[in-house]
């Protein structure tokens, strides 16, 4: 088999701008899902009972529905059901974040609950309020303890963007599909795509693991 590298080289700008969209989408999903997932976890742990019931239901359903189904539903069904018509990129951002937030919520909850109750008692004994204890004692330690799990979530955030191709978000996968179709060089193009994803994600997870090994003592009570 002969490799047709020009198929890749001729359209590297096109592919790279796709990677740019992928990274932008992944960054957006990361920020949004971290923010909303943390709120979900706090609501579940400290909110009134009805709120935590609603949140548990939300988390369970998001974990039971494939992310592709959420994405397709937001893009094709949401406009008809509610009249809210989002462009592809925003549909992807919303659905991927909503999905990942459920996993973030579980990680945050586990992190918070893993902090020893004695730490809370130490804060109480100083006369701190519940909110102060959460903000200054529990959360900082929980964040450190969550780091390894966040590494996996971060890689999921990047990888999941690839399915946005089905609603024509011009991200890396979509672009690669187009190039492969025009050049009849799927081996070269998709191998390149694989390598690109790897180059982005591998240092992310490794880096977080390295940081964790350095600072894990900050969460060890």
């Amino acid at each position: 088999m002969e490799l047709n590298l020009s198929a890749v080289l001729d359209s590297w700008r096109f592919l790279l701008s796709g990677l740019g969209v992928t990274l932008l989408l992944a960054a957006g999903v990361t920020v949004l899902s971290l923010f909303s997932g943390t709120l979900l976890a706090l609501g579940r742990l400290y909110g009134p009972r009805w709120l935590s019931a609603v949140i548990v239901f939300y988390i369970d359903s998001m974990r039971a529905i494939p992310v592709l189904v959420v994405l397709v539903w937001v893009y094709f069904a949401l406009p008809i059901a509610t009249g809210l018509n989002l462009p592809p990129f925003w549909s992807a951002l919303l659905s991927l974040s909503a999905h990942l937030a459920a996993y973030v919520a579980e990680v945050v909850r586990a992190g918070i609950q893993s902090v020893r109750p004695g730490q809370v008692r130490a804060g109480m004994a100083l006369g701190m309020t519940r909110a102060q204890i959460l903000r200054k004692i529990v959360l900082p330690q929980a964040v450190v303890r969550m780091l390894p799990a966040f590494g996996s979530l971060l890689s999921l955030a990047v990888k999941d963007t690839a399915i946005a191709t089905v609603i024509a978000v011009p991200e890396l996968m979509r672009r690669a599909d187009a190039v492969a179709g025009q050049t009849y060089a799927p081996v070269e193009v998709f191998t390149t795509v694989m390598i690109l994803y790897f180059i982005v994600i591998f240092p992310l997870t490794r880096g977080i693991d390295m940081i964790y090994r350095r600072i894990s003592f900050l969460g060890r009570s």
Partner: protein
Amino acid sequence: MTDTLVKLPQGFALPEVVIEYRDVRKQYGEFVALAGVNLEVRRGQVVCLIGPSGSGKSTLLRCTNGLETMTSGEVYFDGMPLSKDPRKTRLIRQRMGMVFQNFELFPHKTALGNIMMGPMTVLGLSEEQARTRAEALLAKVGLSDKAGNYPANLSGGQQQRVAIARALAMEPEVMLFDEPTSALDPETIGEVLNVMKRLADDGMTMVVVTHEMTFARRVADHVVVFANGQIVEQGPPEQIFDAPKTTRTRDFLSHLGWDG
């Protein structure tokens, strides 16, 4: 506040009562942890609570600052009953320092940062004021050179001394110690007890749950013996250790190998 049986000479007054426990009961389901405890702690006194594990002494200590809720009874601090209102409870906690068996230092803060936490978040001191106070306290517990260390890089004895400094940073009127040396290696117990001894010499009111009989014998003004959630005997250390009045106390002490 209480009637004394002995008629005291004129002009002589016992120091005022700081903490008073009135018929304190605590039940966990069927298990009775405290079966009606009455006790007074006076200003400047060092009161040691001793007795077998599970006899209720730590539970009583935790009821003092509301870390544990009582099933019934009252705890008075400076004449005020411990309230269900969280704001009032916090105000009382600020005036009582507490030291835990497992230190419970904040792992994400340095020794100095641990001590500054209370003054900055609760008392509203500026960072600079809190730092000055923390540095003085670190010197007091002999750990000035460890200011920048995280708890992970301190020995057990050092961690417990930082924990004492952290409690003192709130300038409490009373210090509560919950088995402060039970989690320590034998060789570091002494350094913690020394700090506590100095604190007692400075006139701090202290309630100490301990298994260190030598410490109780030497430092306590008043020793309280617990068994099965009740006080079986209390009195000055000479009485408890040299001439115990109840068989329960004798059994407990002989079980520990105490021979006076």
